[in-house]
């Protein structure tokens, strides 16, 4: 221990004198099995996320088959395609988890990169979450209104409001993460002589 920051003897010796058995190494076979198990758990979670889209897609396919106007059919098919893009993005972002080696970075560095990853996903939510669904939704609603012969702008306003709210909430959360990143960055600044 260096002289500049002497450890508080009582607290330090109390801490180091705990009667805790040291961790013992596990057999490599057990570690390899655990790694496979973890991978299986991640795959199962990804599959669960896909189930929702798989359940919704047939509904829109059914609409594309049942509704007569070509705009409704096209809109429904674009919605299915949009769901596909959304799923792909979810999968891509879930897969972009840090490598095990990243855990050997400093806590500050590791924590910062995790926050930055979440911030970027939130900032870009309009692009990967909202945008893929908008063309299909718009055409589908237009087609339905033509079929019904009734023009209801309120429906479009409602959808725009929901989508806009999603974008705003995500951007608000991203700003919160950025503030936390800025605070972390301050901790790495060295004094200028």
């Amino acid at each position, binding site marked *: 221990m260096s002289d500049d920051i002497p450890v*508080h003897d009582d607290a330090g010796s109390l801490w180091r004198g705990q009667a*805790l058995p040291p961790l013992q190494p596990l057999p*490599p076979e057990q570690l390899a099995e655990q790694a496979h198990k973890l991978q299986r758990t991640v795959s199962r979670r990804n599959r669960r996320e896909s189930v929702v889209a798989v359940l919704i897609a047939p509904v829109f396919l059914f609409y594309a088959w049942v509704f007569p106007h070509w705009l409704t059919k096209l809109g429904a098919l674009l919605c299915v395609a949009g769901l596909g893009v959304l799923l792909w993005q979810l999968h891509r972002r879930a897969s972009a988890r840090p490598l095990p*080696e990243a855990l050997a970075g400093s*806590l*500050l560095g590791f*924590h910062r990169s995790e926050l930055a990853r979440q911030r970027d996903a939130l900032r870009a939510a309009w692009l990967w979450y909202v945008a893929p669904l908008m063309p299909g939704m718009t055409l589908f609603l237009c087609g339905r209104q033509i079929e019904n012969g009734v023009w209801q702008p309120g429906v479009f306003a409602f959808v725009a409001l929901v989508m806009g709210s999603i974008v705003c909430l995500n951007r608000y959360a991203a700003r919160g993460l950025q503030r936390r990143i800025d605070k972390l960055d301050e901790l790495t600044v060295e004094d200028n002589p």
Partner: protein
Amino acid sequence: MTVTNAQDELYRQAMAAHGGELARCCFGYERDPALRQELQQELHLALWQSLAGFRGDCSLRTWVYRVAHNVGARHVQQHAGKGQMLELDEIVELADERHDPGHTERRLDLQRVLALVHRLAPLDRELMLLYLEELDAASIADVTGLSARNVATKIHRIKALLASQMNATRSPR
């Protein structure tokens, strides 16, 4: 020696040299025995997997500490409510509030050190644990990524916090 064998060997070396510190580190991040067992398993796996990428750019001890504290901090974020954790400034104020006669006879025992540790937010908790493990300022900066100035400031606060706890236990009524 194959890569896998080198990884296994490094893992065994790390556990032999730092098994005690790792056990205390897990205790510092998780009080509940069942969850601590889970954390220890996570740590074993993370350390073993990470060592595949060990190239000797830092000491094995620094590597082990970094992995252990990152896994610990991740565990805390997954299992604990954020509202329960405080930063050093906040917890110093909390300690000052306890300077009432009802607390003056408390001994600074392990439970009190643990109670302090478990209330700290991850970065400050890591600092406190590294300080208690007797790491010097340069090593703490190396493990945490904090600037030397910030390490010095935070260590000063930790010392003040521990000293205030000691004074509270020793001051006469």
